[in-house]
């Protein structure tokens, strides 16, 4: 396991065996032997490997949970990128899964969303409403999507994903998770989270375009039909920019998603939709829309670590390691500063 991880990380850092050997101060043969599990590095050499690969002892020596990943990747996403990404995600997910094992059974709500079968695109609307009902939501817009999912046993992580990848979902042991790119705007992040949620809960009939169904689902989940109709009416010939900005703030989705939803619900006709697309391109809104929404954040790791710390499930140094900060920073932030966790 240690050798395999060294191998994966060396590739991730784009280092040859020779380059790593030079950084660590051992022979190329030694690196090869470590990677092939024919030898193990001494504790001192291991420290230098950790430094050279910019990783942590915990990651290199941890047992990895069984993680299944489903990528929403574009065709141009290379195998190498996928391998790097997997390694990064496994590292982050591993932290939460390992941490949660220290808590008493039943402390965290397990993922329990039931699969909804989709035979046609028309059924997506009902599926979104069904899920909303199951999650105890009404027609109102989702104010905090990350919190909603985390309360229902889905871990949401924001990571630096390659440009070619917006979102990923998967399962690690019993923990369901969605990983979202840090670098995309807040509205796209929310839409992607809802899209990945669609991948998780929908069982889509063969022949239907899975990505289209999940996009449709994301729109229906984030913008409830009845609520939307009350806001903008049953038929519209056009929208003003002010109204689109206002709707964007209400639903926390992009203006493009709002117009798309209006088209899908038959509120606007195809001519209006095409006209909107032209304006969108001409104004440069495909790249950047007016109104920047605040990004949602995931605090799950921080909250879990602090709870584990207070309950003495982890030591100070272990808590700092999990949060990827020094003990000094941990103490100054949580034990001395304004956010101190001990009264």
């Amino acid at each position, binding site marked *: 396991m240690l050798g395999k991880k060294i191998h994966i990380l060396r590739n991730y850092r784009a280092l040859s065996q020779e380059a790593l050997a030079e950084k660590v101060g051992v022979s190329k043969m030694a690196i090869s032997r470590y990677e092939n599990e024919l030898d193990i590095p001494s504790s*001192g050499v*291991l*420290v230098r490997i950790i430094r050279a690969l910019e990783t942590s*002892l915990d990651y290199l*020596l941890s047992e990895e949970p069984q993680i299944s990943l489903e990528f929403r990747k574009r065709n141009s996403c290379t195998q190498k990128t996928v391998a790097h990404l997997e390694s990064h995600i496994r590292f982050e997910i591993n932290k939460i899964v390992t941490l949660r*094992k220290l808590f008493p059974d039943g402390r965290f709500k397990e993922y329990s969303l039931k699969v909804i079968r989709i035979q046609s695109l028309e059924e997506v609307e009902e599926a979104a409403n069904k899920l909303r009902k199951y999650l105890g939501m009404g027609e109102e817009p989702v104010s905090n999507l990350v919190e909603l999912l985390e309360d229902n046993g889905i871990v949401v992580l924001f990571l630096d994903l390659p440009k070619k990848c917006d979102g990923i979902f998967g399962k690690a042991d019993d923990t369901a998770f969605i990983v979202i790119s840090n670098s995309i705007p807040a509205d796209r992040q929310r839409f992607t989270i809802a899209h990945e949620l669609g991948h998780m809960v929908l069982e889509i009939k063969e022949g239907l375009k899975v990505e289209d169904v999940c996009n449709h689902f994301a729109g229906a989940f984030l913008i409830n039909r009845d609520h939307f109709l009350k806001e903008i009416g049953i038929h519209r010939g056009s929208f003003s920019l002010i109204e689109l900005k206002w709707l964007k703030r209400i639903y926390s989705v992009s203006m493009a998603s709002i117009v798309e939803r209006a088209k899908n619900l038959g509120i606007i006709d195809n001519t209006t939709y095409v006209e909107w697309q032209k304006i969108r391109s001409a104004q440069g809104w495909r790249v950047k829309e007016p109104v920047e929404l605040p990004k949602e954040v995931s605090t799950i790791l921080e909250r879990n670590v602090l709870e584990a710390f207070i309950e003495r499930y982890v030591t100070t*140094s272990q808590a700092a390691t999990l949060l990827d900060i020094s*003990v000094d920073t941990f103490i100054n932030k949580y034990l001395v500063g304004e956010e101190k966790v001990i009264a």
Partner: protein
Amino acid sequence: MNLILDTSCWISLFRGGLLRKLLNSKHKFLITDWMAEAEIITQGLRSFIDLNGIEKISTESKDYINEVKRIRKKTKEKASLQDCHGVYCAKVYSYLLVSNDFDILGELAEEEGIECRDLLWLLDQMLDDENIITTKEYIDAIDNILIDTRFGQLRKLLIQKKTDLGNRKKKGD
């Protein structure tokens, strides 16, 4: 005596401003290379270790990683790998383990047949046996150490110790 301190203990001594005093001690202080180099320790502590030649110990045996992992498993993953490496070294080299997380590592040390003491034992040694710190320095150190000590036995013991030392000071002892 050769003493190997856990990470938290090193940090407490650093926060308590007592690191320099250690250099006057009759004891030899050791730190594992995992503890010394790890990102988790503070920059100030790392500089002190480097500048003052606190001896770093390394392990090379074929099964040391499995042994450290086994030890950690016994703490139900509550202790860091660095601290478990310290426990492993204490066992292999027959060093005395000094731990701040006595309720996790102390119990483990006992199971592993390692002699283990807590931070108060070390501070008492420095005050009473070696006279390398004063009562005031001890009390001040406790104040600083308490900042990062959670609820639990050690916190109670430190507070009690501070009261005892205060009374002792009043009596002019």
